[in-house]
């Protein structure tokens, strides 16, 4: 279960799972959907595979990834997504507040 929590902790990996919810996708399709390098994406895929949340299957020269999540893991993904976006929004508003200039024009650290 720790591997599942580790896999769901990262927003990129959550987004990969959300994309795979709609339909299975090739590695290229998934990599194109993110502004990160292909080795980074491969590392994310490896973590998801290690957690048993996705399965890779070779179809000719491409690798097709598809979802392999139980209902509980699916619910955890939804929960982690909601919690992640809430915490992310709270964090960015806190950062914005910190970056706002004070009365004498200085930006607080």
């Amino acid at each position: 279960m720790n591997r599942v929590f580790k896999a769901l902790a990262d927003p990129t990996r959550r987004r990969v799972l959300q994309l795979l919810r709609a339909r299975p996708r090739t590695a290229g399709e998934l990599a194109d959907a993110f502004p990160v390098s292909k080795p980074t994406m491969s590392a994310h895929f490896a973590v998801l595979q290690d957690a048993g949340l996705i399965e890779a299957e070779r179809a000719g020269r491409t690798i097709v990834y598809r979802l392999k999540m139980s209902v509980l893991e699916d619910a955890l993904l939804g929960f982690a997504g909601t919690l992640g976006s809430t915490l992310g929004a709270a964090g960015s508003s806190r950062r914005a507040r910190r970056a706002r200039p004070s009365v004498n024009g200085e930006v607080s650290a």
Partner: protein
Amino acid sequence: MTTRSLTSVVAPAAAGTSALLVAANWYVRPERAIVWAPVAALVALMAIAWRRAGRSDPAGAPARTRGGVASGIAVAAVVLAVSLVSSLGRALGLVTAADPFARVVMAVVGVFLAVTGNAIPKALAPLTSLTRAARRQAFQRAIGWTWVLAGLGVAAAALLLPLDTATAVSAGLLVAAIAISAGRVVSCRAAREDAAGRLPS
């Protein structure tokens, strides 16, 4: 603890307890031997089936199927043990009219349905085409969610509602889950025939 290791503990423990309870019931009410003899045979059959399911045979059924059989036997053995405890309690005058065991059996069945439904989306078929895999994935997710919610509903009703209401609610939930599953099967089949009948562009 994994489901398999849990099953390997629960199944023999419940089957052994059931065997002891059958013997106790038989001893307390020997006039009902006609009931206890088939129950004893059923427990023996369960033990044999569990032993066979646990044995790895390269030419036999795959491990997943054997695991499914073993967990089914574990649940059946637990339900049987609870029923036998109830029967023995009634024979000894320890259990009065209100039957707490019916609730336990209903809750166990609900949990079993939820656990089984939870695993449905994880069972993947070999990849043939992306369209077919997408349709199958959507189907399995819908069926999995349906049975998990129905199972949890049955378990919650058994534990929280008055027994008559719980029975009615459980029956309603099961009928609804079966209807939803049947509807999904029909729509999935129709979509497959539609795709198969479409002319290649």
